[in-house]
């Protein structure tokens, strides 16, 4: 197996500790990077997903774009709740802000989406920073309520702001990227998938770096984290900023997707359905969230075809209850244990 690589290199970080840990040479180090084969498989799968719109019809491509938007939100929830352990319900505020900023950027400032989305990401990040800063001193339920309140406040402000369209919202805008309208579902999907892949790569990279460990340490024991030199506040702010930037982009893409932004983009419904996805998929498991996000969104939008439109909420609710009862780690936990069991069985066979 290639995830056990042998390091004979003697160069190491310098420090007092070097004298303590004497070089014994040829020590085995588990490389967290995973094997080359699995990396290639992941790349292949990513490429296959990106190529999907070439094979699907117009409205299915729109559905795929919507799934990508939900996946972006799910991924930011994974970062906040799964990796950082912050129970934030502020997704809707970030999402809604992104939607409105995108519309204003294209309508009022005549910005192309390339700049517009950067602006959205920036505003989202700043909003994330503010939410992080406001909630620095609170945790758990208080943090959830405080972040939730931000969404309510924004909804109310927007509802009463005439130049943002008031309660009816705004319509008739065209968001472009590189001069081409996001009315083209393929373009919308691809812009979304670029953002999603970037986000996933950042998160996976972080998880294997000191950043990921800093998030983990802050989540598991803030006191211990600080005592090993981790500025827990800084990392909390960083996580919120990242989540804000990408949730904002999700909102911007949603505006392009739904053709209308109105105060309902700040509503609790969206937060709750993404939360459901995150719980069923497993807060700590990005693959779990992505699979469940795709499946549930597809189910939700096609429920009528299965004759299940009346039972959507029932299905969501039951899935949450069932996974909390039988799969506390969500689908992701199940996947991980199956895969681990599978590989160790393979190893066992080889050794015998």
């Amino acid at each position: 197996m290639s995830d056990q690589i042998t390091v004979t290199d003697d160069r190491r970080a310098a420090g007092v500790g070097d004298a303590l840990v004497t070089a014994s040479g040829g020590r085995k180090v588990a490389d967290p990077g995973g094997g080359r084969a699995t990396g290639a498989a992941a790349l292949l799968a990513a490429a296959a997903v990106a190529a999907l719109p070439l094979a699907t019809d117009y409205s299915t491509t729109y559905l795929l774009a919507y799934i990508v938007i939900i996946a972006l939100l799910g991924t930011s929830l994974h970062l906040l709740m799964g990796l950082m352990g912050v129970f934030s319900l502020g997704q809707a505020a970030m999402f809604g802000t992104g939607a409105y900023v995108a519309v204003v950027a294209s309508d009022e400032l005549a910005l192309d989406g390339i700049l517009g989305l950067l602006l959205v990401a920036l505003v989202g990040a700043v909003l994330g920073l503010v939410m992080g800063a406001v909630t620095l001193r609170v945790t758990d339920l208080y943090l959830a309520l405080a972040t939730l309140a931000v969404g309510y406040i924004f909804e109310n402000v927007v509802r009463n702001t005439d130049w943002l369209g008031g309660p009816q919202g705004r319509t008739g805008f065209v968001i472009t990227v590189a001069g081409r309208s996001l009315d083209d579902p393929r373009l919308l999907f691809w812009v979304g998938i670029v953002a999603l892949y970037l986000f996933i790569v950042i998160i996976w990279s972080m998880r294997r770096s000191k950043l990921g460990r800093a998030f983990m340490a802050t989540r598991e024991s803030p006191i211990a984290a600080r005592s090993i030199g981790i500025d827990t506040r800084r990392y909390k702010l960083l996580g919120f900023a990242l989540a804000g930037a990408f949730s904002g982009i999700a909102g911007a893409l949603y505006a392009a997707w739904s053709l209308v932004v109105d105060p309902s983009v700040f509503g609790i419904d969206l937060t709750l359905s993404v939360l459901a996805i995150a719980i069923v998929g497993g807060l700590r498991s990005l693959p779990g969230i992505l699979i469940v996000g795709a499946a549930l969104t597809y189910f939700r939008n096609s429920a009528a075809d299965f004759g299940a439109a009346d039972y959507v909420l029932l299905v969501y609710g039951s899935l949450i209850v069932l996974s909390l009862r039988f799969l506390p780690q969500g689908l992701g936990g199940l996947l991980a244990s199956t895969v681990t069991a599978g590989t160790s069985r393979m190893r066992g066979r080889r050794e015998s």
Partner: protein
Amino acid sequence: MMRSKVLASVTAASALLLLAACGSGDAAGDDSGVFKFAVVTEKTGAYADYGLQLEAGVQAAVKDLNASGDYDIEFEPVIYDCQSDKSICVQHAREAVTAEGLSAVIGPIVSVDILPAAEVTERAKVPHLVMAVLNQITDDYTNTFRWSVQSDRSNQTVVDYVEAKMKPGDTVAIVNATTDFGMGGAAQQTEQLAAIGIEPVASIPHDPDQADYTPIITELKKADPTYVLLSDSNPADIAKLLRQAKELGLKSTWIGADASGAIQLAGDAAEGYLTVSPWFPGPDTQELTDKLVAEGIKTPGWISAMAYDATLGLAEAVDSSGTSPEEVTKGLESLSDFDGLARTGWTFSADDRRGQTTSQIAEWTGTEYKIVWPEN
């Protein structure tokens, strides 16, 4: 650990692929001799009561059209349930006009769902028949056709009625919910009353979903108006207001919007309540009422009646001009003084997409609606 995550995400990607494969269903066949049109409506979810009425109206009309033998083409609605969720309404509107290439869309029923759907149909240049009352829709979307009476015209109808009935010494008060519907309605009525020189003796807003409205009734009793113009679309709230007004012995005549179920909830207290609506079920409209009941709607309302007329109008347009989106649009725009079963005199043009400019007012007698305006 990492390895398993990579593997799991490969699984995720494959699942996505699979889903997409399922999603790309086969497009509808293009058999000539059949005109297919989309009905995107809220069959389930919060607005299902309204959405099902819309569907019933269309179905009843299609049966009549195909049975009549007047047309050489067969009409077939393609029904989409948008689950009272505007994202799904957009999704289905797109499916209808792009994947399926349908030439006309009817529905959905509530404004928040119509707006995004209209964005889709406008971009695709497909005619869109709506039953909503919000002015903005036909103002902003040049592909929409309103098969109902828009709210400012309904409010004008109420003011016209009051103007005709007022005797010297009579007074008017306005009561409204602090919702978009309520506040918009109150503002319009205040303006329309001012235009005929009437100033309300009281103007009382209330928050929706209150348990107790007696403070409002008490205030009204002090002002003692002859007419109370009510802008509230919440059936439960209307019922509570009427019940508490009766208990406290308020003598005023209430005139309000048609909110389905309000009359039933109010019971005795609804007797004498004046409703403004484009259409009323009952003995005066027995034929259509029966057809709608046959579609499974217990108490048909204006939505199903308007949907019925809209479908007749769509057939007329197709018959006169053709089946492509441009032809259907042209056909609808040339409808003039077209008589449906619910209302007569439907008129559209490229500049005026409102269909009707007046509404009707009926009194609830305790057992049925009696139309009191316009007077024949």
